[in-house]
């Protein structure tokens, strides 16, 4: 990942792993012989028909720092950065929930002094942009945390076709609950044993979501990640809200955005490791999503 606030790019993914496709990923009856990706087709749903409904109201989030935010606001865009995993310049966003970890590897000074920032983008706006890739986890952590647990496939095997595909996965795995997905509430996660044994990669993916088999992986393991080669506009039309360190609340550009209707929440910043702010920021992101109607009221405490 190239997000300045999220340097979780894992080691380069071994291309040779893609040489071991699982038998279940090939459709023997497919006349074209095209290989089907492991999460492409949802298993039959024991709780009823698979939900094909879009979660169209889900927004997108982007983690950055206040220092970077000032540059973003000056330029009006989140600019693509070099990505170590795919070797391209990309902007990364998470879909429907806020997840980040800031590792102490680069940009340390501004990270620790300024505090992390969450930008929340309108779902419809981002859906209309040309997206480069969609993954059902953070691609930066794949090599380090999930590749073994997901059958050693090449990362591209897990690339989702589009956001509708992502919606179906969220609905299927998270009891059709946006709040369960947002809070990564594994109590409401589909049980692995509800998946037929023949759907090995679905069982493995759910195993990863349940936290089995992948040590040190955090909630990004089940967060839909999207990337774009294009700058993402940052203004009152594209932003639903943002969460910033409280000490910057009176910043003129922040006030201007609020006057234009962007919701801004602030959290206290006592320095120390940026990751320790995660809980506070996620709580406030949830409040903004509830305020804006993206999540149902009453789920602010994770209920």
């Amino acid at each position, binding site marked *: 990942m190239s997000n300045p606030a999220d340097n979780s790019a894992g080691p380069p993914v071994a291309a040779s792993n893609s040489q071991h496709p699982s038998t279940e990923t090939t459709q023997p009856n497919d006349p074209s012989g095209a290989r089907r990706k492991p999460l492409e087709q949802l298993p039959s749903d024991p709780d009823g028909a698979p939900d094909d409904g879009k979660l169209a109201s889900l927004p997108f989030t982007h983690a950055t720092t206040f220092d970077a935010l000032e540059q973003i606001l000056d330029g009006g865009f989140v600019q693509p950065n070099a990505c170590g995993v795919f070797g391209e310049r990309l902007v990364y966003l998470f879909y429907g929930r806020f997840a980040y970890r800031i590792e*102490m590897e680069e940009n340390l000074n501004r990270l620790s002094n300024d505090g992390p920032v969450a930008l929340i983008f309108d779902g419809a706006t981002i859906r209309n942009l040309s997206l480069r890739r969609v993954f059902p986890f953070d691609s930066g952590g794949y090599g380090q945390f999930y590749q*073994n647990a997901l059958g050693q496939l090449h990362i591209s095997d897990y690339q989702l076709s589009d956001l509708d595909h992502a919606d179906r996965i969220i609905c299927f795995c998270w009891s059709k609950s946006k709040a369960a997905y947002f809070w990564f509430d594994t109590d409401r996660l589909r049980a692995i044993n509800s998946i037929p044994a023949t759907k090995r990669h679905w069982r493995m993916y759910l195993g990863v979501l349940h936290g089995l088999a992948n*040590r040190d992986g955090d909630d990004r393991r089940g967060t839909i990640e999207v990337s774009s080669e294009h700058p993402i506009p940052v203004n009152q039309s594209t932003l639903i809200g943002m969460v910033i360190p409280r*000490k910057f609340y009176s910043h003129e550009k922040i*006030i201007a955005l609020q006057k234009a209707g962007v919701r801004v929440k602030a959290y*206290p910043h*006592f*320095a*120390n490791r940026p990751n320790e702010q995660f809980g506070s920021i996620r709580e406030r992101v949830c409040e903004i999503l509830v305020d804006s109607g993206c999540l149902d009221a009453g789920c602010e405490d994770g209920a």
Partner: protein
Amino acid sequence: MELDRNHEEQAMAQIESEPDVASLVGVISPVRKRASFVTPVFASGAEKWLQRLKAERVEGFERLKPTGDVSPVFGSENQIQVMKDSEPVYAFAFDQSDVVVAPRRELARILSGRLAEIQDDPLICLDVAEFIGDRGEIRSAVKASAAEISAVDPAVAYSFFCDQLGRSDRSDLEEAEKIRSFALLLLRFFRSYSRYLYVGSDAPRRKLRDRYQRALESLIPFIFDLELAQIIQERISGLEQESAQYVFDFGIRKRKLNKSRIRTLTRTGMSRATAIKLLERAMSGSLDKQTSDSNSMLGLARSAIFSADRALFEQASLSRTLKKAEKKIRKRQLSTGVLSIAYGVILLLRAGQRSMDGMFHETCDTQYLGLSAIAAGLRDLAPPEPLQFGTLTQVAPRIPMIAEMSFTAIAALQDVGLGSK
């Protein structure tokens, strides 16, 4: 399996390389020139580390790379060592050369004693107050921050105010939001008068409208000043007492009046005095949070005052010599009216504040008290016709007078040291 083992070995190596104890070597320098919490950095061997916290204990250390730009800490702090499972330390930089590093409780104590040094930056003050855990300081800092933001945009400031003080209970916030909406409606109501005044081309009206709007704008920051309620209450009491005293004095001076008229005046005067006492008790009761009693007392008091004033007006109409008294009393009554409205608005906002503070049971009482005060104030502005609160539009013909009275209210607020000149 081989890969699993490698992973395990890497993880073990990472954990093993973490020190059990590390010494403070400095802090990561603040980028901006303002006081702020900063991040303490530790050294063990050749490496630099940050504390990794869990439930206010040091769970371990996280390697810091790169290690440049760490500002050294001077003084006794540089002897600090932190161990795994011990209390973490926090750091606050007043400036580059004045950095305090200590465990939370100790740093809170130090910061409490130095709050005055960061008063110029209320948002930083708010972070510090929250770190200290001082509810009073938090409220002051929220108010100061909101006041600062309101200079740029009052609506954003109010949003900040609600968000910060209402964080503890969301359901109360919704109640507060209703109250706030009502208070804003009231302000819009007054604003509508200015539109009326704007009709026509004559310059004085336009000028009046501008003054009116400025006056209303100047009211907005008051919503952050809860002490205002008390000051206005004192002001109202003062005016009421003054008015009652005037009735007595007038009656005594005008000995030429016949005995029956004096008796009537005295009776109305007594009635008014009794009412004022009730009103005082109601106001102080509301400030002491005994709002249920206050409501009924306020209702009684306002009714008594209103009756007394009506009687007085009737008396006044009997004698040309009483016209002066009428004017004098009318002037005081109008002042009382606008102050009552201002007090009512403050009470409504105060009700919102109370609900945000979790004193939910008192919210409705205070809200009712606020509405009563506004209704009474409007009645004062438009005597002797009884005016129902729900029929504000009936006041429309009296727009110019109410506009003027609003200026009086603003002036009264300025008299007591509130509001911009």
